[in-house]
């Protein structure tokens, strides 16, 4: 009896990376995907940090289907205002709705407060996204705009997942933070993800613990259309590197 050997079909994930100053994505190995690239100055200007964005797509059974990584270039207005808030300059942030919101960042000694949200712990209420920074992905398309306040078309939010910030490198030459979340597609159909955004929760200057809070955009990136099947999940990530 002849035994027919049928090769087992293994679907390998597609791993893509866009390198600095290149327009197209290249297929790379997992090692090259995680590779830390040297940071370059720009014509007499030094880098404050390197910001990379990454997107991973998983099938409903948890199998990694696709990974993409590219140099992010989208710190928007609010992030610039917060950075200057570190230096003691009063800061007004723009909310997701495009409204100027006075925050108690950096006022008189003893009164300066980070915009932190006094809400129940994450998961305690189905109505809240949670505190700290959150990711939202969307399926809208638009030019990258430093003055953006929101995604073009928000689609999926991490209602049931916590955003995590991890320190992946801390040395005498650099410190690297990794900020990511896993977002499930609970809709009945596939979603084509074309934009990712990092938001933060804030409180107004009333400084009350029961303040309703607001969301404001920190970083935004457009991405080539990436389908996420119903039941699948997508994991956006921002990598912040602060090399000397």
């Amino acid at each position, binding site marked *: 009896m002849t035994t027919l050997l049928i090769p087992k079909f293994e679907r390998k994930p597609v791993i893509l990376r866009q390198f600095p100053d290149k327009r197209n994505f290249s297929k790379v190995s997992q090692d090259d995907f995680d590779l830390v690239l040297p940071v370059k100055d720009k014509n007499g200007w*030094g880098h404050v940090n390197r910001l990379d964005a990454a997107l991973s797509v998983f099938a409903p059974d948890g199998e990694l289907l696709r990974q993409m990584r590219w140099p992010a270039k989208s710190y928007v207005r609010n992030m610039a205002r917060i950075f200057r808030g570190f230096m003691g300059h009063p800061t007004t942030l723009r909310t997701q709705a495009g409204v100027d919101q006075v925050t108690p960042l950096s006022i008189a000694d003893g009164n300066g407060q980070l915009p932190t949200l006094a809400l129940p712990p994450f998961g305690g209420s189905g109505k809240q996204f949670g505190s700290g920074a959150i990711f939202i992905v969307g399926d809208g398309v638009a030019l990258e705009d430093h003055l953006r306040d929101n995604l073009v078309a928000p689609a999926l939010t991490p209602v049931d997942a916590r955003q995590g910030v991890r320190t992946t490198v801390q040395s005498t030459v650099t410190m690297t933070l990794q900020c990511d979340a896993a977002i499930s597609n609970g809709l009945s159909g596939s979603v084509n993800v074309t934009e990712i955004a990092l938001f933060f929760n804030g409180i107004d200057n009333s400084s009350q613990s029961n303040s309703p809070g607001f969301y404001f955009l920190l970083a935004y990136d457009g991405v080539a259309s990436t389908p996420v099947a119903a039941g699948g999940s997508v994991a956006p990530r921002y990598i912040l590197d602060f090399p000397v």
Partner: protein
Amino acid sequence: MKHELNQEAFAQTEGGLFVPRGTLSVHAQKRPPRKVIGTPATMTAAQIRSVQRHMKRQDIITQANKRLRGGIYARWALELRDDKGRPVPIGKDKRGRDIWIKRGPCHSFVQNYAIMVRGFLQHLDTALQAHEQITEDDGTFHLIRDKSINTGNNLYATGPGVMKFGAGLGARDATDIDLQGAIMSGLEGITTFNLVQEVAASSIYEFEGQVQNTTGGLFTIEEMGLFGQITSNLGIFDVTTLLASDLTGSTAVADTLTVLGRYTFTFAV
């Protein structure tokens, strides 16, 4: 056959040369007199500020819009002033011309800065009540960003940032907490803020700080640093926290002169 010059087709320069009309060389063309408003020693303070603002703003905007794409960039600048606030040359270039400003790329943001960003982005967990820890310029550890959000002690950056200047020459290290050779016992110059622009392509702003030499003698600057003034979770104010430091090259500062440092940030899409 006598050949005569076509007077309509040619023009004569001041030096007597005949050239086709519309093609006068630069050397032959008479330039309009250059408008001179005086040297810094004779200019009024208002004229000086006007020229500096115009040159600085245009230079920043032009460079940022043309060359910077994506991310955050920064650079430092150094200038000297006399006791009347007038610019003083820092040195001479190769041709013997006065240098009025020194600039360089800034990329020496140290761990304190990254820790502040991390503390800002961290997901809050009231059960953990964890704190971020930064290091003051004297080596003292301070806890910041109380994550127990209902205690009323959620304190972070307060007070204006400061700038310091030093004489240290060592390479920068991400774990630095102060300048390597702070001058005048670490005298701090309170920074002022200037928003250059905030448009669809970028946000550009500056922090300036200055220190006057009152030592009675000359000192030489080799480094400058930008510090935040943080409040700890115990309510300790003005914790001077190094955020960035840079080697500037040697700059001699004579007695009574004021050294002015500036950090310019660009956030570009």
